[in-house]
């Protein structure tokens, strides 16, 4: 189970990602505990498996429109399906990888698995409760979901 300090690591990592990668800051709402994780999965989710000194998943889930605009902010002209899926995985990878600054190198992250609404249950398939970190970026809303034992 995460403590408040550990949640803060992911909040700070998320804020840093949007500010640096897109040039547009995100605001983060109050994290909350959630049982029905499938309900928070949006159009796409980039899922990172965590092993080593912690077990669980970290995922970033966002609507397609948001991901397309993020790509444009990164000067990417190809906002097709492949790049949208690629980006959602890269965001999850970056937020999870940055967390090693606080969790240490034994916080082992997998390469991303990409889910969409057709297999949202895959993203949500974790044991235990999850912290949802709501993200507001421009006119869009997304979530970072952290479920760690």
């Amino acid at each position, binding site marked *: 189970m995460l403590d408040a300090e550990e949640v803060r690591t992911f909040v700070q990592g998320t804020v840093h990602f949007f500010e640096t990668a897109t040039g547009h800051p995100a605001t983060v709402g109050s994290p909350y505990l959630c049982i029905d994780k499938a309900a928070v999965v949006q159009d796409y989710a980039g899922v990172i498996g965590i092993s080593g000194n912690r077990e669980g998943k970290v995922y970033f889930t966002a609507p397609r429109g948001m991901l397309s605009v993020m790509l444009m902010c990164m*000067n*990417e002209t190809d906002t097709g399906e492949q790049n949208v899926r690629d*980006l959602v995985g890269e965001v999850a*990878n970056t937020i999870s*990888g*940055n967390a*090693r600054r606080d969790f240490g*190198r034994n916080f082992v992250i997998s*390469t991303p698995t990409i889910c969409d609404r057709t297999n949202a249950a895959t993203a949500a398939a974790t044991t235990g409760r999850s912290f949802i970190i709501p993200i507001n970026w421009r006119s869009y809303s997304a979530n970072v979901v952290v479920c760690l034992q």
Partner: protein
Amino acid sequence: MSAVPKPREQLRMMIVDDSNVMRRRIERSQQNDRLEVVGTAVNGLDAVTKFKQLLPDVMTLDLTMPEMDGIECVEHVIKIKPDVLILVVSALADKATAVEAIEKGANGFLCKPFTDDQLNEALAELIGE
């Protein structure tokens, strides 16, 4: 009589990352006129295969990749071309990982996410500018 300036050496660069968005971002954002992108690879195994053919002077290298990760890739390419300049570009932000990459033979470390300026500064430092 003033000395004739020595022409600046052109360097061939390879980009290795499992993310297409990231590969394209690095290629698009790098603005050093000494660097020419000659190839890309999607994982460590692909990188080693292409490295043998292209023998680039400079490589940007992700660490977390399928098939073969970046640390193992460094070990392989250093044996093929010991003087290759490697900039690790990774989200893994712990110091121990950066130290390990440098010990294996990488020459620099840039943490994701990064701005265009940070990328160009890291590449300039890598090639000694």
